[in-house]
């Protein structure tokens, strides 16, 4: 009996963790939004929000921007995705990889490149009516930031289409364009919905891009920050961050429905047939889209090596000494520590509890509750989570003083913030294994944990590495939540970079962003090399 409880320990630990680090802060946040001062409660804050024209304008700003970015990104993402998944376009692997570049840097990093190229002092500064700073800039910055997410979802969906459908259509005389219209687009419908919703969710909750490119143009995420940090109006901040939850929840719900209705093809992917004209078209279109993140990110990196743009274009390493910042180089080390802690602890907790959830008998009520808790962070805006942590853990009675303002609170916050995706991939990949491995082990006299270590873990080491990598990169690049709870002696690099950009030090901001990206890319390469050397034979299956 004790053994049984012990086996399920990871799941219990994860439940306790989510209760303390997710449910409790969110409850505090909800309570704060209803607080009217002097101990009375009511929905007056929400009424005030929607009745104040300036605040309602911000709400509609966010929705309109979200809609525009969603349409543009999803449309653009189709070309590289289709090129990578369903054509023999030249260099389609490179197209795909280039589209993923923005994942490795903070959301606002490409925007620094945009400032260089299209800003008031840039070579093409006059191209945009009304200037880069404002809604146009936000749209462009968000499109590049969200592009990789849309490309990943669409490519996976397009690769899933049964190649026999194309063979059948061709045998009936359909050409490649007719196949595209009659097979690919209908089959990819759910992928479009799914990627559109993810893009929308990312856009309305993003803090970095509007901070860098918004100027006086306010959106919900930046408004929360303004209310809390600028005006110390915590309850209005709480209200706005909960208002932000409404469109986020709607998008999340639609995405959930789209995923649910998606039928998984079990057909193996096959090399597409040659279609010269179409392949050429998608080579060009794919490169045209992939060139966007490449160009702005390369510009941002380049600008970090320039003395004083646009006046003195000589090469320098001076920006990397961060002389204009009071933090110097310390933020990058803070971030590395944070990212490693988040990655290690998060992966252990998430993977082992997904293991218990998927491969041991857990009461249905418990498993449902855990699944719900685990996907919740996906639709919680970072600003809401960050603010919730201030309200919950700042001056909490009985909590040691060192906790608030320590690295630990950033680690907890980041694990919760990025909990959902590793949970979903871990549980999907664990439930994909033959359900009887542990049972075989047991009938042969071997306990469950032996089979976990000898079979399940080696079989799913790729998933574990992906989860660890995702958590590492997310913790390196995140801004929206940690910006509320960092303290100067543990400021993360992404926040330092954003502050530098705010202070007009674009070159130092770019330098810090480049360091973040370099760290992420180096880890990616290490994983890749490690896997190429130790790629176990059974993975060729």
């Amino acid at each position, binding site marked *: 009996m004790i053994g049984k409880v012990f086996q399920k320990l990871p799941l219990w630990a994860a439940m306790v963790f989510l209760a303390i680090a997710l449910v409790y802060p969110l409850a505090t946040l909800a309570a704060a939004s209803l607080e009217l001062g002097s101990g009375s409660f009511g929905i007056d804050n929400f009424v005030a929000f929607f009745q104040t024209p300036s605040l309602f304008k911000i709400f509609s700003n966010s929705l309109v921007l979200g809609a525009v970015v969603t349409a543009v990104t999803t449309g653009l993402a189709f070309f590289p995705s289709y090129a990578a998944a369903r054509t023999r376009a030249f260099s389609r692997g490179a197209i795909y990889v280039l589209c993923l570049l923005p994942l490795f840097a903070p959301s606002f990093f490409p925007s620094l490149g945009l400032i260089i190229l299209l800003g008031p002092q840039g070579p093409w500064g006059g191209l945009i009516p009304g200037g880069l700073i404002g809604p146009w800039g936000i749209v462009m910055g968000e499109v590049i930031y969200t592009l990789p997410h849309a490309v990943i979802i669409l490519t996976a969906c397009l690769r899933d289409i049964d190649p026999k459908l194309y063979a059948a259509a061709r045998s009936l005389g359909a050409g490649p364009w007719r196949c595209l219209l009659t097979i690919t687009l209908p089959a990819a419908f759910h992928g479009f919905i799914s990627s559109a919703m993810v893009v929308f969710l990312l856009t309305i909750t993003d803090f970095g891009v509007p901070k860098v490119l918004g100027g006086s143009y306010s959106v919900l995420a930046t408004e929360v920050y303004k209310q809390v940090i600028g005006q110390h109006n915590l309850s209005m901040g709480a209200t706005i961050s909960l208002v932000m939850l409404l469109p986020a929840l709607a998008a999340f719900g639609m995405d959930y429905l789209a995923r649910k209705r998606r039928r998984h093809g079990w057909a193996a992917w096959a090399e597409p047939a040659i279609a010269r004209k179409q392949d050429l078209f998608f080579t060009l279109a794919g490169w045209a889209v992939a060139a966007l993140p490449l160009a702005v990110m390369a510009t941002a990196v380049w600008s970090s090596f320039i003395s004083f743009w646009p006046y003195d274009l000589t090469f320098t390493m001076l920006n990397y000494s961060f002389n204009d910042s009071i933090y110097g180089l310390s933020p990058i080390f803070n971030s590395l520590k944070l990212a490693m802690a988040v990655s290690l602890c998060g992966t252990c907790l998430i993977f082992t509890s997904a293991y218990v959830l998927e491969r041991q008998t857990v009461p249905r009520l418990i498993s449902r509750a855990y699944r719900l808790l685990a996907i919740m962070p996906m639709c919680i805006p970072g600003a809401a989570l960050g603010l919730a942590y201030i309200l919950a853990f700042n001056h909490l009675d009985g909590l040691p003083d060192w906790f608030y303002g320590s690295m630990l609170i950033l680690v907890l916050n980041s694990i919760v913030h990025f909990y959902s995706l590793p949970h979903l991939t871990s549980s999907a990949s664990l439930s994909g294994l033959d359900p009887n491995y542990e049972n075989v082990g*047991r009938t042969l006299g071997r306990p469950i944990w032996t089979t976990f270590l000898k079979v399940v873990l080696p079989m799913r080491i790729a998933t574990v590495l992906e989860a660890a990598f995702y958590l590492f990169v997310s913790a390196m690049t995140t801004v929206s939540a940690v910006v509320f709870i960092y303290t100067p002696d543990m400021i993360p690099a992404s926040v330092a970079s954003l502050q530098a950009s705010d202070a007009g030090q674009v070159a130092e901001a770019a330098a810090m962003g480049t360091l973040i990206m370099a760290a992420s890319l180096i880890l990616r390469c290490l994983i890749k090399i490690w896997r190429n050397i130790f790629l176990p034979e059974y993975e060729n299956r």
Partner: protein
Amino acid sequence: MDNFLSLRGLCKAYDDSKKGKLIALDEFSINIAEGCFAALLGPSGSGKSTLLEILAGLTPPDEGRIFFQNRDITCLAPEQRKFSLVFQSYALFPNLTVLDNIAYGLGGPGWNKTSRMNRALELVAVTSLEGLEHRYPHELSGGQQQRTALARALAPHPRLLLLDEPLSALDAQVRRELGLKLRHIQRETGVTTLLVTHDQEEALALSDLVILMEQGKIIQAGSPEEIYSRPNSRFSADFVGHMNTIELPAVNSGRLFGLRYEDVEILIPTEQTLARPEVQVGRVEHCALMGAFYRLEILLNDFSTSIQADVARSADKELLKVGAIVVAAFPSEHRLQLNEL
């Protein structure tokens, strides 16, 4: 001997959101003797696999006890039972080689590196897997995977071997060969075996004891000969072998009876044959070569009763033409009096 493995009144029901309670086992009791090869035969959904899981200790029964050598083992954990289970999917560990798969259960006290290796190699020989020791499961054919799973299950000297439809994923030829191989290995090792199958031929050909079950209950248990030649119920007769059910005023005094396809006699209509008692004239509607014999579908001259009959390939070709008029006889010694069951 009778008290080797004894199941007493096992019950198991599952909750089904649509149909309410789903009864998998209903007062299931049987004794299995040491060294016996028993086959649990039944249609899908009859509770066979549930019984295996309960025996292996992976699912607890709702009611009833399991006795092994007179000891109650109902609550014993699977790790302690030493009952090996071969799953339908084999569940071979994809990241381990054939040899490592086989040696998987050889852990804990009493095993060292050499003895593990020796035992694993012994099993490789028994299951004729020589030369494949260092392959991974995905590099094996279906039959080789099956033998690896069997070797893995046999390696730790199980006290009982449980097989869940072990041959169902294989094609017909391999299936026959492996079935015989399985029986051979079982005889050699003497391990008491319980095989679950829905394939009557497999059950009849391999086992000493056939346990026919439906909806969680035992319908009939006995030797293969007994089950085939003396079915105790309509279900037994139908499920094991093929049977016509015939009710004709002029035959068997008008009472319903059953007759196996191969027991129907098909004759050329002559004065002699037509003069025999209780024969019927019919027309061949369909004729199919089944391999060793032909299967005829014959419409009898009441124009509503259609019967099937198996005739030897050496039979008169006149009988095998569609549209041919033939005489069908129903030997009384083979009739199963279904009203009495």
